[in-house]
């Protein structure tokens, strides 16, 4: 039984994770059956690619700066100060990370365009003499969107670090005469560093591999877009392999680095957590703080607000807000062949991915928690590996490794889409079922066995009922995230017949006339689905919503 589960899990991971990734190696190092570094070095002589690499690093660095500037003060304010509405804001500031900035980008174009809402508003208020090119070359716009999407990761990590941090360390420094700034620089920040680095490396990799946003902003000189474009002419130009390899190595390094930093920190565990109280602020300070936080909330939810507006707008030219509203886009969503296909496809792919993940998560979580066997480490590593593998890299690997086989995504991507959705979310489910099994005392299973129940019966009657809530919650999250999965959907779906929602949104966003409005409506529906799923899942699991986003 256990052996069967193990072989099944390893087979799946081997076929859909290890094999396609290993496939990349010979492609980037072999030419005519010989080892060569020519393909790698050809990257350095290609100015477009060099420029893209540089831009991508710039973008990632800018996003880190942006998220730090927002996330760190936010975390300190929300954990260290007491004011009415604090709980509300603590949850509110997690919301921006729910929807991929890819959808928000559609709405933000409307807001940030040369004669978009923002410039028109500022012009009318006579704050600026002429329109400001917010989108500039496009890079700034992408950085803004990514920052607004990713700062919750910074905020969550820093808050977590602050929560198990002994305040007396700061008080001791203050009693020795350290000023607030000295205190922050010499005591607080060093203690927050592991959490900060963890957040930085997640944000860096995320920003570096985000495909959706640059595609919507039509900014091609970025690494992910180059990879995306390389797929079409991969047979004549092997540069794509090397680019993916670069991305993979970078993200693996960052992943390992993060783990090291977090694990090697001696002072993050065993600390008695400080009381959650914090300073009580004066009335005036409270009002100021709440006003500031509300402004930030509006700004960071702007992408979401903008797509909601966009989805309802029928006419929106040279005006701050739409001049005419209607339900037309929503009607279109349910009547257009393209959108309907997308919804049906995504429902189908995501459901099957969810079932696959529940079965695999159950099997692997059970094996890891209840069986010590040789190769346990391997199974654990494989199941967690997708955390370190960007979607675009895996999707690229699928495209090339399975090209020409019956699974070729150019012919029929159904299998590969289901596989990639489930592989990408598997770590979350494995981790949660593993934790679930660990919390269940093994004696409960033994008690059942001692009454004569065989292992199958014990599993069905004792274990399963106890872990079903957690499993369902995990499944719901897999479903929601699969419905909204961007990069792998964009890469793997070539034919309209097989398009999932994200690809439909992308195609619509590029169309003139009402395309962006219908895309926005589809995006809003996705957002609603996600909110409903999150609500259901957190109720089922009895956990706070933010737990699903613990990234390290």
């Amino acid at each position, binding site marked *: 039984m256990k052996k069967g589960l193990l072989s099944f899990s390893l087979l799946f991971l081997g076929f859909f994770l290890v094999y396609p990734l290993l496939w990349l190696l010979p492609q980037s190092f072999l030419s005519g059956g010989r080892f060569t570094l020519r393909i790698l070095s050809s990257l350095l002589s290609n100015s477009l690619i060099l420029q893209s690499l540089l831009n991508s690093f710039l973008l990632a660095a800018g996003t880190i700066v942006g998220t730090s500037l927002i996330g760190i003060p936010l975390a300190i304010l929300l954990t260290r100060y007491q004011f009415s509405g604090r709980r509300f804001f603590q949850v509110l500031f997690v919301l921006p990370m729910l929807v991929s900035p890819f959808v928000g980008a559609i709405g933000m174009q409307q807001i940030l365009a040369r004669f978009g809402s923002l410039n028109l508003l500022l012009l009318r208020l006579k704050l600026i003499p002429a329109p400001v090119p917010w989108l500039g070359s496009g890079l700034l716009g992408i950085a803004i969107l990514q920052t607004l999407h990713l700062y919750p990761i910074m905020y969550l990590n820093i808050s977590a670090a602050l929560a198990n941090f002994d305040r007396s360390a700061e008080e001791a420094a203050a009693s020795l005469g350290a000023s607030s700034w000295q205190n922050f620089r010499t005591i607080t920040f060093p203690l927050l560093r592991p959490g900060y680095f963890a957040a930085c490396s997640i944000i860096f990799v995320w920003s570096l591999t985000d495909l959706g946003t640059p595609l919507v902003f039509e900014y091609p000189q970025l690494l992910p877009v180059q990879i995306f474009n390389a797929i079409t002419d991969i047979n004549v130009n092997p540069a794509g392999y090397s680019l993916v390899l670069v991305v993979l190595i970078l993200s693996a390094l960052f992943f390992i680095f993060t783990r090291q930093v977090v694990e090697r920190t001696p002072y993050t565990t065993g600390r008695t957590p400080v009381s959650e109280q914090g300073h009580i602020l004066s009335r005036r300070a409270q009002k100021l703080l709440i006003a500031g936080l509300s402004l930030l909330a509006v700004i960071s939810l702007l992408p979401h607000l903008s797509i909601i507006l966009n989805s309802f707008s029928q006419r929106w030219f040279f005006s701050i807000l739409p001049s005419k509203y209607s339900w037309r886009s929503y009607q279109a969503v349910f009547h257009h062949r393209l959108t309907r296909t997308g919804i049906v496809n995504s429902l189908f792919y995501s459901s099957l991915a969810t079932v696959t993940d529940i079965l695999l998560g159950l099997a692997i979580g059970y094996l890891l928690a209840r069986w010590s066997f040789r190769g346990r480490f391997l199974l654990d590593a494989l199941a967690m590996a997708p955390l370190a593998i960007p979607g675009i890299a895996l999707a690229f690997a699928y495209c090339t490794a399975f090209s020409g086989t019956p699974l070729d995504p150019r012919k029929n991507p159904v299998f590969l889409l289901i596989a990639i959705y489930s592989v990408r979310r598997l770590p979350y489910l494995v981790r949660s079922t593993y934790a679930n099994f660990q919390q269940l005392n093994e004696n409960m299973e033994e008690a059942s066995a001692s*009454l004569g129940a065989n292992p199958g019966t014990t599993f069905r009657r004792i274990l399963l009922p106890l872990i079903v809530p957690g499993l369902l919650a995990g499944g719901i999250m897999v479903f929601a995230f699969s419905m909204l999965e961007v990069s792998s959907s964009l890469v793997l779906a070539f034919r309209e017949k097989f398009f999932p929602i994200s690809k439909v949104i992308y195609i619509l966003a590029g169309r003139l006339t009402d395309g962006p409005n219908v895309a926005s409506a589809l995006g809003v529906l996705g957002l609603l689905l996600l909110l409903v799923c999150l609500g259901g899942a957190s109720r089922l699991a009895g956990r706070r919503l933010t737990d699903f986003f613990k990234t390290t």
Partner: protein
Amino acid sequence: MDNLILSLENISKRFGATPVLKGITLTVAGNEIFFLLGPSGCGKTTLLRIIAGFCQPDSGRILLDGQDITGVPAHQRHIGLVFQNYALWPHLTVWENVAYGLKLRKLPEKFVHQRVEEMLTLTHLLPQKNLYPSQLSGGQQQRVALARSLIVRPRLLLLDEPLSNLDANLREQMRQEIKKIQKETGITMIYVTHDQREALTMAHRLAVMNAGEIVQTGTPLQIYFEPGNRFVADFVGTVNLLAGKVSGFETGLLQVETSEGLLRATGGGDFSSGQAVEIGFRPESISLRPGQSNVFRTTVTETEIGEGIMRVMATSPGGRNFLLHLPLETGRKLQAGQNLIFSVPPERMIVFPLSPSVPSAVKRNGRDKPHLP
């Protein structure tokens, strides 16, 4: 020993490099409460888990009614186990927890209903039948665990420190109940504890374990009054011990030369002259009437009230401390500084070979222990 039921033959087990069980051999007869008594970490739980089938011994055999069950999986052994932490299933009600074992056997609904009701009545749980484990008190949880195991009438019921999580009053009450249930159901029980009082009051027979070995097996009376070595004497009750040397035999009495003079004890055919031994007596074995042998002249140093007795500390001129238990009425008249002469009848003396290798037991109640030089 008719109706032989369980025998363990030379069971050994190591975890990594540390041996946890070192060749356990044991026989448990039908229809008794057999106790395994030993300090924490001596391997009691491991032994129970091996009997239940949750753990494989490295060597040795387990025979149940003459049949080798060493390789039989736990769920086919028909041996019940009550866990120290109860291990109730939190998603099932009291009724469902108890009915589980019967439902597995696909018995008729009516029969299951009747048996569960009987069992809940026996364990006083009928009013709680629809509650979930988290809604029960510790004692009630304990009884559910018991009922759940008993209802399938296992060939053997193993209990792993079942009362250690209850407070003292409840523990006393549950001891009586378990004894009563055992009598009524006739199920053979192996009961593990580190509490010597529990073992002495409840056991038909008991085995004392230390560091993965069984050091003595016997009835509570044998274990208490005829401890076979220093460990048992110390771990079960309290004893005043003196080192000595066998000097001879006289009229059926063993004579031992000690720092307190010549002491005499009955029995002991397997001692040889000149052998190094330990000799002593339980605090309550003394008599204040003048005796012919084993007379101690002491001075009272301290007295205190115990449970139904008076605890008296006394010192001999040679500086030995003795702990004595006297009837309250006799003892209350004693005061520190007063002379106290007592004797111990030879048949109440305890003698065993000196065994420096056996570490002395760790006692929780240190005050009970006389200071022996």
